[in-house]
């Protein structure tokens, strides 16, 4: 059941001129949150912005005796993300959550491959911690524009996550999209594995196609323009095809944001 919390900002770490991680004191949301779920966030009072915006829960923040809250990874693009970037400790953010379907995380001997593009790293800190706690061997394939926009590498590697990178300018890992090292690794992989992807939709479409070519399943976390997060407004729909039927729109807030990548009709994406 989602709860609405006026969460106090514990810390706001600006990772770059665009990216930040804001830590929020919201134990009630964090305690019930599974990796891949999201919160609807409103960082200011009043009517600008009016609607909340959806954010994947990045980390679950723990102390020795329990759970303190969660953090969000944000990239400054619009009004809400600019407000999130500028937050100071003590500020208040209205958070509604946890919402949506979580990842179906796998246990050993199956491996987990996380595939992130840019701010699509957002759901994977909590997912990686959960996977590592299960003893699942976990690899993060992480693509970004440049080395300066690869974040939390030490955080993931210190938890035993193997990291493979790609950057558009070649400053870290492969030059090009994350699908380059991913496809190479899939060609070599022999054991059972499940893929999890989050990032821009063209990347999710490409990763889903790569996964299908190699006979692997891939759960994708999509981001659509969302009005309510509760299934009320029907704005965040995405076309899916289930059981061989015709494509139809389902609400990504309640049927997702995590979907089987093979069920999404990627070719329906808006051009450009």
């Amino acid at each position, binding site marked *: 059941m989602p709860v*609405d919390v006026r969460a106090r900002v514990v810390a706001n770490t600006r990772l770059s001129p665009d990216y930040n991680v804001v830590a929020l004191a919201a134990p009630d949301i964090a305690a019930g949150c599974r990796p891949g779920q999201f919160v609807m966030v409103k960082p200011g009072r009043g009517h600008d912005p009016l609607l909340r915006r959806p954010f994947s829960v990045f980390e679950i923040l723990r102390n020795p005796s329990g759970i303190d809250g969660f953090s969000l990874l944000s990239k400054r693009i619009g009004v809400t993300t600019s407000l999130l970037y500028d937050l100071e400790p003590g500020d208040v953010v209205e958070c509604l959550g946890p919402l949506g379907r979580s990842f179906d995380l796998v246990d050993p001997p199956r491996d987990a491959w996380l595939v992130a593009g840019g701010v699509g790293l957002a759901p994977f800190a909590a997912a990686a911690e959960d996977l590592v706690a299960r003893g699942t061997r976990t690899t993060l394939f992480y693509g970004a524009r440049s080395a300066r926009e690869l974040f939390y590498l030490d955080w993931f590697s210190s938890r035993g996550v193997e990291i493979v990178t790609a950057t558009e300018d070649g400053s870290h890992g492969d030059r090009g999209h994350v699908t380059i090292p991913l496809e190479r690794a899939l060609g070599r992989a022999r054991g059972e594995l499940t893929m999890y992807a989050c990032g821009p939709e063209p990347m999710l479409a490409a990763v889903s196609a790569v996964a299908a070519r190699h006979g692997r399943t891939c759960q994708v976390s999509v981001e659509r323009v969302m009005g309510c997060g509760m299934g*009320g407004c029907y704005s965040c729909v995405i076309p899916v095809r289930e059981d061989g039927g015709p494509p139809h*729109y389902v609400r990504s807030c309640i049927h997702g944001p995590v979907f089987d990548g093979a069920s999404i009709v990627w070719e329906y994406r*808006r051009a450009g």
Partner: protein
Amino acid sequence: MPGKLDVQIGGLRLKNPLIAASGCFGYGVEYAEAVDLSSLGGIVSKGLFLEPREGHPPERIVETPSGMLNAIGLQGIGVRRFIAEKLPELRTLGATTIVNICGSTLDEYVELARILSDAEGVAALELNISCPNVKEGGITFGCSLTGTFDVVNAVRRVTTLPIIPKLTPNVTDVASFARASQEGGADAVSLVNTFLAMAIDVETRRPALSNIVGGLSGPAIRPIAVRMVYECRRAVSIPIIGMGGIACGRDAIEFLLAGASAVQIGTANFVDPFIWQKVLADIDSYMTRHGVARVADLVGALDTSAREKEWISS
């Protein structure tokens, strides 16, 4: 025994004046985990046609100053699935369910009304003759006085359920449409649906919505909606259900004073699904502060006597 907050809409008694607006509350069941549906005055279902519809492609919404534009395109499961899958759950949850119906033809409204009259758990029918986003969503009826009269009258002949045409603000004189509704046999009118509007992404030069135009809702439209409720109150004797940008108790009271017997909340529910108890508490404390015994006493209680005397006399 009438209570402090209950209101009467024709033959329909609601336990309080707050109703979840059509298209803003799914089929109601989506909110059942978060909200006690029986604590609301009522809920209005998402607009239903006879057949299922896929709606418009995304983008379907965009935020605008103090508001939002939508062009969902009435995606829906159709009336039969609604009756089979949603209505039993709504009954169990104790919701007062008003079903919003949309037709491409007069016959479709009549057919929907017949089907829903035989279903158990329908409190009233809201006639959607005002969706700005689909050509066949009744807007052709809602923009013509004879069309409005005809659809209300045709539905009136086949149902004893309370019928509530939902009026569009995209006309010159909304009060005349309230009058046509009353003459057609409506038990009440609800207004306003969204204002036809448009937003453009200047960087890409593309319309913000796939449908190019959409309906504007939210606090931005509230003063226009209040004015329209006021105009309709002076034109008809049937109850009015007011809506348009209500986000708190004061906003709701503004509509009551302008002449609405009940109000619907839409966009604000997206922002805060727990808004209902907050608005009710606001209304309750306002009534206590102003010594108002029953919420019905606020309806149309606008005081225009205290205007400064016009010093230029004609």
